[in-house]
């Protein structure tokens, strides 16, 4: 891997890193490091000073100790699919890429847990579990690429969180390298470990409290059956009313996803599913569980959708048709490429009952900033993903995207929600932290980070506004794409 080094990291540190992981697993030339200047959030970029690819916990502990001694920032990275810039090397430093630590170490079907390395790609675990009757429930849409370590760090969700919960509900323990290189295990496969739930604090901490080097995950029994439905509505309001009615009737679908007209058009152009192009919104609804209860749930859901003026409710007749319905949801992102050269996927949450209002506001924001915004999202959780279409080469458009995003997220807060349901704060949303939280909330968060990461060398510039309490100005790292 190595070519000529032109990093600013002192030679002594570089050579020690090479000793720890082997020459082949250190990138120090600018051209190689450039690949790691950003993750799935491309609006801001900065190159790491060195990139290392360790294979073991012990190597990571040595790397972190070295950085600790020399005051060098360290940032863990999985697959780099974060959409909030969690993997952006703010302030440079050493980027620790975990993709070589990718093994599934143990599977215990009877006790329903597995042990994996952090670089294990989410879907690999599901594939390895085929035939055991068990699966790993968190299934982010990026599951074919993202790592379980990254999922732990961002507390990922996915289409099935409505019924099955997010990553934190499925992680039993983690092995972590702390900021000074010490290795600890938080939690246990038996759960309820006495003492503080530091595991709960670690999940979703976006790399700022430690580097996760091993994960014990809960395995969930496969449902006996599914009923997958696609309900087509004339208007977004009818679709969101149906969502409220379904939940209100005491039904908790495994998935309840919504696509609006803009997305339907794109999906239709790409895959020809036969959706009516004039439909206002489509709901993908899946109930799962024991076979015995599914027919009634399907009938109830269908009736509730009809009561809310669904134009049509299609039911997948078999596994093939189910896959086809899911395909249109899962491939929706791919289809967006047809609509515009770049897009920005936003992530916000509102109470379910506020969905009609937030979708109306998104529409207005799009009009105001002359941007096309399409929506495909986890409607059952109230987790919106407006997708803002633009051209990265046009700085005026980039600017409008940023302002429109800001307005939409502010609206989420106004409606009692959150600025992120699953992508995290990263660098992208630091500016919102003092709108969501009081200065004493932020002080408490700083205090927690301080307790784990006293010198601030682990993932600096993430999650929390810098320096003390509230109202802090956010440093924008590196250069901004097209600005």
């Amino acid at each position, binding site marked *: 891997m190595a070519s000529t080094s032109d990093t600013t990291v002192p030679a002594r540190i570089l050579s020690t890193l090479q000793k720890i992981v082997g020459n082949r697993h250190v990138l120090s030339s600018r051209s190689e490091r450039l690949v790691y200047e950003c993750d799935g959030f491309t609006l801001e970029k900065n190159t790491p000073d060195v990139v290392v690819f360790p294979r073991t916990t012990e190597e990571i502990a040595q790397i972190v100790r070295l950085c600790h001694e020399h005051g060098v920032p360290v940032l863990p990275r999985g697959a780099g699919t974060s959409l909030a810039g969690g993997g952006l090397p703010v302030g440079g430093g050493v980027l620790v890429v975990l993709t070589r630590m990718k093994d599934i170490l143990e599977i215990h079907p009877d006790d329903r847990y597995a042990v994996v390395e952090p670089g294990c790609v989410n879907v690999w675990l599901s594939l390895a579990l085929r035939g055991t009757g068990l699966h790993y429930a968190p299934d982010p849409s990026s599951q074919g690429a993202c790592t379980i370590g990254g999922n732990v760090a961002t507390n990922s969700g996915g289409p099935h969180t409505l019924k099955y919960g997010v990553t934190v509900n499925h992680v039993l323990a983690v092995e972590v390298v702390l900021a000074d290189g010490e290795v600890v295990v938080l939690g246990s496969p038996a759960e309820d*470990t006495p003492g503080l739930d530091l595991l709960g604090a670690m999940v979703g901490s976006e790399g700022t409290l430690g580097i996760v080097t091993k994960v014990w995950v809960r395995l969930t029994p496969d449902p006996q059956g599914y009923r997958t439905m696609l309900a087509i509505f004339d208007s977004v309001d009818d679709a969101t009313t149906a969502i*409220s009615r379904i939940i209100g009737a005491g039904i908790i679908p495994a998935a309840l996803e919504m696509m609006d007209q803009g997305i339907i058009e794109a999906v239709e152009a790409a895959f020809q599913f036969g959706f009516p192009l004039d439909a206002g919104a489509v709901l993908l609804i899946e109930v799962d569980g024991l076979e015995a209860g599914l027919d009634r749930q399907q009938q109830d859901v269908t009736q509730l959708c009809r009561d809310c003026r669904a134009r049509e409710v299609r039911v997948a007749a078999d596994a093939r048709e189910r896959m086809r319905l899911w395909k249109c949801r899962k491939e929706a992102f791919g289809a967006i490429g047809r609509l515009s050269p770049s897009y920005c996927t936003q992530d916000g949450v509102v109470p379910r009952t506020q969905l009609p209002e937030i979708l109306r506001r998104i529409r207005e924001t799009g009009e105001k900033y002359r941007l096309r915004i399409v929506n495909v999202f986890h409607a059952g959780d109230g987790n919106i993903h407006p997708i803002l279409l633009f051209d990265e080469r046009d700085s005026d458009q980039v600017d409008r995207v940023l302002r429109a995003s800001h307005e939409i997220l502010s609206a989420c807060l106004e409606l009692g929600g959150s600025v*992120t349901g699953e992508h995290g704060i990263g660098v992208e949303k630091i500016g919102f932290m003092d709108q969501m939280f009081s200065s004493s909330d932020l002080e408490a968060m700083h205090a927690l980070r301080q307790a784990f990461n006293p010198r601030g060398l682990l993932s600096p510039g993430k999650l929390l506004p810098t320096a003390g309490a509230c109202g802090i100005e956010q440093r924008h790292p590196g250069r901004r794409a097209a600005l």
Partner: protein
Amino acid sequence: MATALETLPLRETQSIESVEALTRCLRQASAEGVPVYPIGGATSLEYGMPAREAGIGADLTPLASIVDYPARDLTLTVQAGVRWSQVQAALGEENQELPLDVPFPSQATAGGIVATAWTGPRRFGYGAVRDYVIGIEAVSGRGDVFHGGGRVVKNVAGYDFCKLLTGSMGTLGILSQITFRVRPKPERRCWLSAPVENWEVARELALRLRRAPLAAVTMGVVRGPYWKQTAWSECIESVEDLRFVLLLEGLAEEVAGSIETARHVATGWCRWHEDDEPSLVQSRLDDLAAFPGSTEPPLAIRAKTVASGAEPVAQAILAIDADASLFADLATGMVDAHFSVFPQEGLSATLVKKIQPIARHYGGHVRLLRNASGAEMTHQVVWTELGLPLQLMENVKQAFDPNNILNRGRFVW
């Protein structure tokens, strides 16, 4: 149930009427370095290490309102001092519930349940307390109010104080308000129960049932004299009987289908007795939930391991005390036990030497729930020696409660 005055060295008790009052109380105590003991329904004050230093009791029961209950959003926000039965009653009106079952629900408070992360018999079906807390407000040992989470079911903004504070025994902050995500109530519930020959049969049956498609939310064995005085009495003929119990919950069709499946799985192993009369179903559940909170036994413990550890732990307990009463949750690996007499050899020789190693072997631990003798209340006896990252925990404690006023000396460090 012992009162606060019997269990805590209180020199005064302050009635907390508002968050401001709590802030004032903690600021002053912090300045003076006086311990503060948060008190909810006073149902679990014996839990943990005994408090040794005289301090102030902070009575949170006046903070008893339901703040917000948008039923369609499936969330509920309450003040910390609200009684659990009141929470369940409010939810019941909308045909919803929190599937967290506790001893003394008409006494226990929401704050106390979250602070102890108390697990009940339906853990297998519905998960733990931490899975239901989506928003939290607390006052730190510095006297500062802070929040985590919010009122939406999905939220990853900032550190997850909901998890950090759940089970923290009030050592980082005194909880003042909590937002829960809630669930629709199941349409039908039914207990299946059957005598089983021995622990090996119980273990094997549990394994088979766990692999079968069932709407099971509780799965375990009750055993011992205690159950004679409960809604389970008719199931217990002799104290040595092992009674396998299985609670099914869900849609009517799911429960009906599960009964069939359970019959099929158990063929040749046992014959189920079926009870679905709603008040009996509930009182049996209440009795299972109440069991670990009972103040009758001289010694009560709770072990938690991976699922396969429950049976060996239960056997180890019975090897020490053949008349012990217990509930062994074979699906989640939790064993609650009452000893019939206080072990003569003492707790180090029994709990620490004989039971804890087995629990540890299965990834778990044993906690002491009640020790009538009051002797040997060491960290190792109360919580099990686990090689916890204590320094890290202390750093976190220091960050939230620098003068160590909150539940001083009662937790794992």
